[in-house]
């Protein structure tokens, strides 16, 4: 029946293969107007929920359709050994338990289900920007041969920023060369294959709106950052875009993660504010991080 098949979305331009739409089990993507072929940047300080949101997306995509998932493949590129498989599995188990019927509970069965979900996830570890570039080249073949791959996640794309900056010497062009090539490659991937690309960047540059304090000096390479990403609210002054222009040009949505307030029942509330090049204004969303993943409390 129609409910059992993974949902495919026909692409507007000819030549693109049919790919599953990763928004189906992730309604919050629709709220932020994210379409296949978009590049979404998750920007924020440490501990603001970027990686948790990624785990939420991954579990929704790799879970079987009966549990509300999409049963599609995901590629996760880990650049700083940040990937916490045990955390992903506990989120996955939580969601599977929620979606399954009662009495379905033998331990072996649930392990089997987790394993079959994890088979759809591929994890790649890169430890330098050269390796990242070459790996993305290699992955291009994977994307063309596997039509069920609809999500590429890079966590995080800013890990090599300082090392590249030092290795490039005085020339900004040299410093940014590898990331520029990666950005061009990612642009090709999203145009040719209609996948959604999520990349996290660490917020390490201060905006210098107020006093500088003890912080990293941005230097000349990021002083002319793109104006379109100036966020509407300045609750945080750590949202300065610092990666190269080529990257900023391909990003279609930028989601700024911050720790918001502590709710009445002592739970930390996180907030994400999404700006995009296609729509005006800032769309916000609040969420909690629980034992078994993220719980949204969205407002329009």
């Amino acid at each position: 029946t129609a409910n059992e098949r993974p949902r495919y979305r026909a692409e507007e331009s000819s030549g693109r293969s049919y790919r599953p739409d990763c928004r189906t089990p992730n309604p919050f993507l629709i709220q932020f107007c994210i379409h296949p072929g978009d590049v979404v940047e998750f920007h924020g300080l440490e501990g603001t929920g970027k990686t948790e949101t990624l785990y939420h997306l991954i579990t929704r995509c790799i879970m079987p359709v009966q549990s509300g998932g999409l049963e599609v493949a995901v590629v996760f590129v880990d650049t700083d050994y940040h990937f916490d498989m045990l955390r992903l599995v506990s989120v996955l188990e939580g969601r599977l338990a929620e979606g399954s019927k009662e009495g379905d509970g033998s331990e072996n069965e649930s392990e089997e289900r987790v394993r079959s979900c994890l088979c759809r996830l591929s994890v790649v570890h890169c430890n330098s920007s050269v390796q990242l570039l070459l790996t993305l080249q290699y992955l291009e073949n994977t994307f063309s041969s596997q039509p069920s791959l609809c999500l590429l996640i890079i966590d995080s794309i800013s890990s090599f920023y300082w090392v590249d900056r030092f290795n490039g010497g005085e020339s900004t062009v040299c410093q940014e060369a590898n990331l520029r090539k990666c950005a061009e490659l990612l642009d090709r991937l999203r145009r040719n294959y209609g996948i959604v690309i999520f990349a996290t960047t660490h917020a390490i540059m201060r905006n210098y709106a107020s006093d500088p304090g003890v912080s990293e000096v941005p230097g000349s390479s990021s002083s002319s950052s793109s104006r379109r990403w100036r966020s509407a609210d300045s609750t945080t002054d750590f949202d300065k875009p610092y990666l190269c222009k080529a990257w900023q040009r391909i990003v279609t949505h930028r989601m700024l993660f911050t720790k918001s307030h502590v709710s009445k029942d002592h739970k930390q509330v996180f907030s994400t504010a999404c700006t995009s090049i296609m729509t005006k204004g800032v769309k916000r969303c609040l969420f909690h991080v629980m034992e078994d993943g993220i719980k949204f409390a969205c407002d329009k």
Partner: protein
Amino acid sequence: MVILREGVCPGINEEFIKALQSEDIKTVEDFVSCNPEELARKCSLSYALVAVRRVLLAQYTAFPVSGADLYEELLSSTAILSTGNPSLDKLLDSGLYTGEITELTGSPGSGKTQVCFSVAVNISHQLKQTVFYIDTKSGMCANRLLQMLQTKTPNMEEQMEALQKIKVFRVFDVFSLLACLQNLRSNGLQRASVGGGSVKALMVDSVSAVLSSMLGGKQNEGMSLLMQVAGELKMIAKDFNIAVLVTNHVTKDGNGHLKAGLGQSWSHVSRTRVLLRRVEDAGTSSLRTATLTKSSRQACHLVEEFDLCHWSEERRTSISGKRKLEERSKP
């Protein structure tokens, strides 16, 4: 940057390299980024270009691992090392996890080095595993370790055995730290595990002593070195299944709250962070509180109290929920 040279891969000889250089292609990444057919036309090279490209990609890319295999591997290789102190274990969700970096922060005199000693002694004596201790502050004192062991067992042989399992490296600047870590990664760790008793823990006390002098100003080198140290520690933790414990100093942020030193870029590196503080107006001067400031497994801002002198005892007085909130709002 990987420079194209003869011998980088079979099939690349001098004329090949000269032909590519005429098109301004000197590195592997330039070569791989080009369209092979266009390149073959421009350089009038044979289509064997494609085969060379495939071999180069195979050599230099990282390969995807299936999530299921990764999970299996992790289940069979992750271990949790108890710190020996029940309060600290509760905070860390049973102890130090292998494959991860745990960070201890605190102001001078808050007990970071003493905690490292106690954990090292517990791992070498109780768990009978080897500990690598990188000392950057000359804080390592073998007498103190012996004193701690003497409270655990009167048997001289056992004490000596445990002391032998703690290997100390002294480094005083970031370049020797990097060299030490790279040496460990390339041969030290395997040798240690072959010799009997596997290495399960690596401690660096302290990482900020060698890095903070390199940061600041407009130097890029300091940040790059910081990220390299972070990369080495993470690779060691992941590839050899070792629990890494590092210590860091604290600074005050805009609101006067304590936060870990070394800035935003370093804050992403550790998986779990604990802040140590002295207990004010306490009867004994060896009481400390540990606050969980970053964790992927437990709610943050849990506080536990413990006594440095009575490491294995559980503190009877537990901190109630109300006091936890007060702790958080205290500057």
